[in-house]
């Protein structure tokens, strides 16, 4: 069974790899920091999403290319990405 490590998700194409998103902030206060971006900025774009997952106690990495739907809220984008990744892990 493959289990996604959600904190490992890196979305390419929104700045430095250190750019913070809801996937890799440590707490909500980081939203106020320089370098945090709402996922709504990627709505409508084709992007590569990199992630890590665990399988049989071993950490592995993979990436998928996805077309992000045009939606209004960050949670909608987040849920879409999580769904796409989890589908790829089935």
């Amino acid at each position, binding site marked *: 069974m493959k289990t996604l490590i959600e904190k490992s998700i890196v979305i390419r194409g929104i700045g430095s790899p250190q750019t913070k998103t809801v996937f890799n902030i440590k707490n909500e*206060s980081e939203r106020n920091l320089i370098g945090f971006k709402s996922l709504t900025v990627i709505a409508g774009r084709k992007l590569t999403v990199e992630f890590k997952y665990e399988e049989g106690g071993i950490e592995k990495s993979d990436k998928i290319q996805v077309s992000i739907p045009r939606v209004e809220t960050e949670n909608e984008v987040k849920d879409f990405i999580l769904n796409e990744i989890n589908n790829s892990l089935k």
Partner: protein
Amino acid sequence: MKPNNFPFIAPVANTELYTQTNDIVGKFTMNSAKEFITAPTDVTYSELYNKIINEELIPGSWYRLTDYKSVNFLNGWQIAAENPTPTDPNFNPQEIYEGEVEVLILQATSPYEIAEIGYSETFQGDIVQYEPFTNKIGINFEVANGNTLPDSNTVSGFDLKWDGTNVYFDMPTGYPALYGHYFYLYAEFQDNSATGPIGSFEPNISGSGNFTGLGGSYNMISPSTLTGIGSGLILDVSIKSGVIYFGITNYGDDYAVGDTLLILGSLIGGVDGVNDATITVLNVDAPSFTYYQDGTFEPLTPNISICQFPYSFDGGRYTMAVSRIKLKSNGMKVVLLDLVEADYNNYITDTLYVDTIYALGDAYGWITRRIDTFRNINVPFDFRGRKYRRFEVDLSSVNSSLGTGYYGIGDKFSTNPFGSGPATTGSYQDFKVFDNENQYASNIEWQSIGGADAYGTRGINDNNVFFGQFASTKIENLFSNNTIAESFYNVIRGPFLQNVIGNNFFNNTIKFLFVNNTIGTHFQNNTIGDYFTNNTVRSYFQYNTIKAEVNSIDFSSATHVGGIYNCEIFRRSDNTLQLSYIDGTNTVQYSAINA
């Protein structure tokens, strides 16, 4: 005559007048400068900018810039970018402050560059690092197809193009790329030339042809290769109701996406030339198909801009770095010099994305570092020319121990933990960065980069005001939006922002986030190792080491953190915060962190 006591020397090769003497510290004045700066040419900023863009400077010549002015957002760039709704008549989030006119002495090193080191005629003793090509001040915006621009238009057709010589793209109308500013570029490419076995994920091949009237299964079929170099594919073929289906027995090797293969009609129960099956390869297993242009230019420069921070990564298969950029048509055309037609053909539509700056006002070049040699101040921004606005607020509504009379930031504390923030009293004042500078500001050295765009690693030393003691301080990283009212003798090695320090705060090392705090009186000799956010600190919060995320804790009635002994706040393996200290019998004691 050579000035032999000159501490910083313009880097002009083969010019015998300039000899570096790092071992002797002298004081620079325009009187000494006159001994070696001969006949500088007076230029206005507009004239200097045009000479640079048109590559008309005379290398080695000196220029006397007669109308330099520093500009900055009066309430700081972050508030300008957030652009909150004004709640005070004197608060305009995007108001630009323009400093007094200053005369700078600069030397050309090429037709479009000046020496990194220039001099102030107005403030004798000052040395400046000056970017002459930054002619706008602005805030960030993001460009990708479908994005809404600041003028409410929607971006479309924002994709890579090919003009017969170069790959390029056009900026949206009214939003040119700006010299001197941050420019992040991203695009994805699909390299269809990669070869390997037929892909294991379907759809991997497709078939076409006339199979009317055919049926049945045919095993171990080896298609011949029409285009490409692939070989070894072995298929099991079945035909039902005029539709052909494939099962792959051997995936072969050296196939590429788009390759075409052939199965003669006679091999699948039909006639050659009539019932032939043409197979198209849809994907192959190869190390990587996708590559990127992904990196930051800090900043865009005249002539050719080089990406200082390339992030491109594709697993190592594609080795090209982020392409160099050349701006044309006043910044409306961005040419990617290192990409070729094959890259243009590989570009994936709608993946181009740019994060950069759009202009809100004019600039007159940008001082990225100013050194006051008399007071030993060396900071990555123009501390002489900037002013920031502070609005008086009653901080007792946030922390009753503070009393009144302290200054807030902007017209409200626009970020947590204050929500809408305490109301302003109606009073405000515009401060220089180092107020009372002749009394207090000295021996100050800040590292980091002082760019025009105020984004990312550039321009982060913004919206600071110091009007009390502030000395012997070294800041190596982010430090912004603070108002320091009294003593402050610290080393900062990480983010430390949006704090109001009401009284002494010294001998601390901040190694990571320490945000949105209000400090009442003494807060001394502490080490912040991780998050320390949104806490209420009692008077005399001292000698503590914090090694964990400590959030929303009220220390105002705590005993140990206020004691004159060392405490450590840490996180246990069960995720519970704990405080430890050593008692009078040398026994380690553990308690709740606010006990």
